[in-house]
């Protein structure tokens, strides 16, 4: 039984107990953006730290114990605003993230790195980009390529990382400017003997506002690399 609070006790506080802002983080995420002109020549490389998992990401990372002990679900919100009460469990009737199999498949996969021309200040509560740039060749649009996913983790000494990337072409006839970026995963949740998912949707799991706007001239392209690393 805990009798007294910490404030009542003369305890020995080690120096490393305080956050002095100089600790080496064990995880980092980076954004690298390469802009090319209409001849394919690199005209700009932008790099910045990536900061922001969304609430969707935090909820999806939670272990079963959270749901088992609290009895709570976590509300996943799609980019379209629909919601799903995520509450995984070891039970054939409970819906969890789908996994490839030889029976009934309803794939969960990265839908896209999405780019936008707006910005919003609270990434945690963000479930969609402020002003998504549409896929197309109309005014203000970009042609979305397919996202590229890694086949493995790259190990370098005691650190490891993987990178997700996607290229966008500007066939709009004018310059297009990007100010926000996010990762959207298409997730489907189902039971262990379902023939159809209980919920499907595009889920924004990571979001960043760029530290400076990126402009892509007509005929040019931009490739966005998200790199996630441990022990950098």
């Amino acid at each position, binding site marked *: 039984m805990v009798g007294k609070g910490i404030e009542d006790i003369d305890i020995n506080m080690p120096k490393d107990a305080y956050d002095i802002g100089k600790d080496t983080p064990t995880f980092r995420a980076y954004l*690298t953006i390469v802009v090319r002109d209409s001849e394919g020549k690199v005209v700009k490389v932008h*790099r910045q*730290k990536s900061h922001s998992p969304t609430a969707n990401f935090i909820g999806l990372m939670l272990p079963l*114990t959270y749901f088992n002990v609290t009895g709570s679900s976590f509300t996943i919100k799609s980019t379209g605003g629909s919601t799903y009460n995520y509450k995984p469990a*070891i039970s054939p009737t409970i819906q969890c993230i789908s996994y490839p199999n030889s029976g009934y498949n309803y794939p969960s*996969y990265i839908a896209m790195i999405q780019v936008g021309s707006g910005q919003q200040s609270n990434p945690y509560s963000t479930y969609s980009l402020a002003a998504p740039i549409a896929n197309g060749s109309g005014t203000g649009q970009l042609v979305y390529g397919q996202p590229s996913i890694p086949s493995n983790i790259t190990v370098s000494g005691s650190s490891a990382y993987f990178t997700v990337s996607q290229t966008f072409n500007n066939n709009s006839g004018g310059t297009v400017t990007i100010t926000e970026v996010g990762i959207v995963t298409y997730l489907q949740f189902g039971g262990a003997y379902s023939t159809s998912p209980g919920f499907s949707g595009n889920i924004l799991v990571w979001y960043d506002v760029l530290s400076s706007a990126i402009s892509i001239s007509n005929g040019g392209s931009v490739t966005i690399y998200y790199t996630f690393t441990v022990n*950098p």
Partner: protein
Amino acid sequence: MVTPDLVSEEDIAKLIIPDDLPDEHPTFKAYIEAKVYDKEGHLMQYHRQPMRSLTQYFLALMSIPLIGTYQGASIDQAVGILTSVLGLPSSISSSQSANISWDWAIRLGSGTQAFSLSLTGLAAPILNGTGAGELSYGSLSVSYTNSAIILSLQVSNTTSNTISVTEIGITCTVYTQYNQTTVSTYSFLLSYDTFSTAVSVPALGMAVFQITLSFTG
């Protein structure tokens, strides 16, 4: 941060490899806290230190919400990270459907070992029990706040001797469910740290270990 313009093509591959971009906030901070109480419930020791060592399995686990489990909309094969790092099957043989979930635990130990990305366990795990050198593990508590996940574990020392805790790790069990009731399990170590000073749990005392994983937006 914007690097100089007109970077050559061969430099691009180097740029996407992680390095430090100074003067910006870190993406992630993690802390380990330990509070030790004597048999009367008085707080004897408070210890807090940064977590330093995530394994490749943590990176693989977080790839699931980031890139999903399938290689694509029409490719019914698991992404390479899940098969190559976690050892999951590329496709489960099932006449029905399949899904995936995971659970975590905090484990304590009395040894030390050098960190590696592929560590699978603690050097000298302290067993759950009431025998000599053992601690009685309570249930793991999990909560979250904006951008942070908090794990907390209470242990009791019912023995007549002090037990020193020198290492701590987060373990993970991944479950795949298929064919209605079949479950396969895969176990990993997500993090490993040694304490800068040992945490000593006195006879008939108890301790609370808390790990905070904070994604600082």
